[in-house]
């Protein structure tokens, strides 16, 4: 697969080989960064971050990745500060911005916006979230975090906890995990179960799946517990939200029967799904997970820019 000029829009576009390759490059960049402090593969290259919808963490992660690669960053962090406000089309914004930059990262509230941007732009486009559709770099950094923590993904038993119905993150993570030999526990309130078509698709791909509402009973089985927030804004109905709000809280009491090696992940921000007392335990992997975003995004930026021949 030729990476130079490639767009990163959807996990669906990736093969297992693609994923493994990105993870391997990220790992090498992380090692090299530790050794040298900073790198200069992307020296002279400019990243444009087009955040039509604000997402400070994701934007900072991409900016940090580009700076650590030796490149520089331009961009905006809300549509209200751009000519989109004046009615400019997304396509025109993209065609304009690509005159100023070498790679584009886009975040947009509309589903499919990143795909459209990629079709319009000559330069590579990376999707940093399009509505409720895709956020592929999150999935890759989740896989990277697991791989770094355990040295492997195959053979692990992974629990996905929380809002499995509306949670975009867990949908794509589950789909990507289907490439591996894993056992999945889907732990959620009855109202927030993983959509049936995704469960069926995973089963067809040979993933062993257990659906349950019981967190404490499941904990002892798990190598990884991936916690998600129950997001009020995703609920079409406030009553439905109130019924499930605060269904689960991971705290030290819940973790007393966990394997010592259990690692807890969360895409953050959290509200009250994980008690701060867990932060001090060996189980907490979520801040390390945030860090993983940088090498993974460095890998994607460097590969799509075509500047990583030396790695």
């Amino acid at each position, binding site marked *: 697969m030729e990476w130079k000029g490639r767009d990163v829009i*959807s996990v*669906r576009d990736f093969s297992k080989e693609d994923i493994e390759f990105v993870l391997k490059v990220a790992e090498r960049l992380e090692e090299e960064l530790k050794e040298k402090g900073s790198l200069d593969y992307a020296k002279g290259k400019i990243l444009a971050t087009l955040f039509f919808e604000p997402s400070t963490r994701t934007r900072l992660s991409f900016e940090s990745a580009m700076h650590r690669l030796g490149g520089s960053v331009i961009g905006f962090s809300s549509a209200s500060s751009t000519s989109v406000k004046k009615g400019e*089309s*997304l*396509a025109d914004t993209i065609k304009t911005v690509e005159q100023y930059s070498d790679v584009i990262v886009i975040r*947009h*509230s*509309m*589903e*499919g*916006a990143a*795909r*459209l941007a990629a079709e319009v732009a000559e330069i590579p486009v990376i999707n940093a979230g*399009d*509505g*409720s*559709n*895709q956020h592929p770099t999150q999935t890759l950094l989740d896989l990277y975090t697991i791989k770094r923590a355990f040295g492997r993904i195959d053979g692990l038993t992974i629990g996905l906890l929380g809002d499995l119905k509306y949670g975009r993150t867990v949908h794509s993570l589950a789909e990507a995990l289907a490439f591996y030999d894993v056992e999945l526990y889907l732990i959620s309130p009855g109202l927030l179960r993983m959509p049936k*078509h995704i469960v069926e698709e995973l089963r067809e791909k040979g993933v062993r799946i257990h659906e349950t509402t019981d967190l404490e009973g499941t904990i002892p089985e798990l190598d990884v517990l991936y916690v998600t927030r129950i997001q009020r804004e995703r609920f079409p109905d406030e009553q439905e939200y109130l019924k499930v709000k605060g269904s689960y809280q991971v705290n030290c009491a819940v973790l007393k029967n966990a394997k010592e090696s259990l690692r807890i992940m969360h895409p953050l921000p959290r509200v009250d799904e994980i008690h701060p007392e867990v932060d001090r335990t060996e189980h907490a992997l979520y801040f390390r997970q945030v860090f993983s975003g940088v090498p993974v995004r460095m890998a994607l930026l460097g590969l799509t820019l075509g500047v990583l021949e030396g790695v």
Partner: protein
Amino acid sequence: MAELKVTAIREGTVIDHIPAGKGLKVIEILRLNRPNGGVLLLASNVHSGKLGRKDIVKIEGKFLSEEEVNKIALIAPTATVNIVRDYRVAEKFKVEIPDEITGILRCANPNCVSNHEYTVSKFYVVSREPLKVRCHYCERTMEEEDILGNL
């Protein structure tokens, strides 16, 4: 027997084996009911050995484009298209749902970029029976009912 009810045409297209009741929809999506079109004939609830009941649409002086044939396939997958020249069937083929559907279907997701920006819509056929397609842009899956409502 059908010949008694429906006049033969000299030159044009006969769309046969349309599931009963879908004939009008075929006419609608091909926009054949325009005043300046040629002669148009619809036979509905005709007896059929294969389908029980079927609809037939005859269009004088018109040959279908590939895009039009693909549209028919989406709503009437059993249809056959007969091209008539000089009162004889010169060519006959079954419609087929293509792997990709371009430009003829709108996405049912109101938040899909294709409903807000200038794009040529594109869908991938996920399953033919029952019909399911996935939007190239928002990646949502549409099922038969949504597809018929958005042609």
